[in-house]
């Protein structure tokens, strides 16, 4: 099978499972919303303050939720030795990574389309007026998170204590996309008066491209037996 159709087959299978069971999506969404609530409780009902730090809270909620859902990335394959089968199937094992990556990105973006408006309501943010730039930032940030996250999820799959090892490896690597996403989101919400958001967008693009190339290239090593 060509790489493209391998990727498409994996994405289709995972999305079909998700659409039929809705197991991850609903719990992810409510978990992310709860993280926003927990922050608000911890900081206090000070709306001007919450509004000022809303971008940071929002992206931390996305990253925490994303890490939880990453550990489920290969769960469907684990039960019946499905990953063995996928890996043994003739063709490039990179198809597994690319398929899982696309699935993770789509799932997170679907969650964000609800989480962004929800945070706008909670923190009184102006997101309708800035919908297009915010969507671009969300896509770039989510790609950066998922590129490294999907890779490390595969790497830590067979480890003891992977629940703690995945965030331990992932969070230091996520500093650039987190800074990029938080700062550009906040700047756009503030009206981006100096056009500074462009710097952060460039950082996210550079990060996404670099790690997409490196992770795709090195993936076969991470899953070989």
């Amino acid at each position: 099978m060509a790489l493209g159709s391998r990727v498409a087959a994996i994405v289709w299978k995972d999305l079909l499972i998700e659409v039929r069971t809705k197991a991850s999506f609903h719990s992810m969404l409510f978990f992310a919303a709860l993280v926003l609530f927990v922050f608000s409780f911890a900081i206090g009902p000070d709306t001007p303050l919450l509004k000022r730090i809303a971008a940071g809270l929002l992206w931390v909620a996305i990253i925490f939720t994303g890490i939880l859902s990453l550990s489920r990335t290969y769960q469907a394959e684990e039960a019946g030795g499905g990953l063995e089968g996928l890996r043994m199937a003739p063709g490039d094992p990179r198809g597994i990574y690319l398929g899982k990556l696309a699935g993770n990105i789509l799932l997170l973006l679907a969650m964000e389309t609800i989480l962004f408006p929800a945070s706008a309501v909670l923190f009184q943010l102006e997101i309708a007026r800035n919908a297009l730039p915010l969507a671009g930032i969300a896509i770039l940030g989510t790609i950066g998170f998922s590129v490294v996250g999907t890779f490390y999820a595969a790497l830590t799959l067979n480890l003891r204590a992977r629940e703690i090892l995945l965030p331990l490896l992932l969070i230091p690597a996520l500093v650039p996309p987190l800074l990029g996403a938080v700062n550009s989101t906040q700047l756009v919400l503030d009206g981006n008066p100096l056009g500074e958001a462009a710097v952060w967008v460039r950082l996210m693009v550079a990060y996404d491209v670099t790690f997409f190339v490196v992770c795709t290239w090195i993936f076969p090593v991470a899953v070989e037996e």
Partner: protein
Amino acid sequence: MGRSSPLVGWLGGAALTLMLIGSAIGLFFVAADAEQGEVQRLMYVHVPAAWTAFVAFFLVFIGSVLYLVQRDPRADRFAAACAEVGVVFIALTLATGMLWGKPTWGVWWTWDPRLTTTALLLAVFVGYLAIRGFSDDPDRRARWSAVVGILGFIQVPIVYLSVVWWRTLHQPPSSPRSVSSEILWTWMLNFLAFLLVFSYLAARRARLARIEAELETRQAYDV
């Protein structure tokens, strides 16, 4: 199992001697800094420790690439030994940096780009050691940690750049003063001393890893 090479013993002796000389010069012979006073002498530990840690991290990267290319367990043990000793040096860098920062800046911690990146580097190194600690099969352990060693190294410049931007968009970074040649020489001498200490410890650690690997194999066949 052979005895350790006499070269390693000499290396240890040279490291100890040079450490004593370098510390003596840094503590007693170089004049105290005009602005910072005696506290500045911490820099003769801090700066060489930081450089040594960066060298260690680079060597972990080299060892990781070598392992993935050649699948030679020696490359894996080399990378692991460098990482383990590197953690000690990077922790020393952070500790001395904070000791220096308190009297100089008035705070233990500030979100300086180098400070922040060094702390993140420590986290990457710890992640590397953790992934080794949690895997039992030697081949998988070597392969997984090599991947972490490579990705961790690649992410350093982009992490540093992002932290620099994060800071400079809020306030201008402090420009480092040019240092006198006397200070530079003491740094270089201590850097050499630290490198020797690092090489000695890493060589010892690699030898220990070789013995452990042999024990693992023997136990696997005996039981």
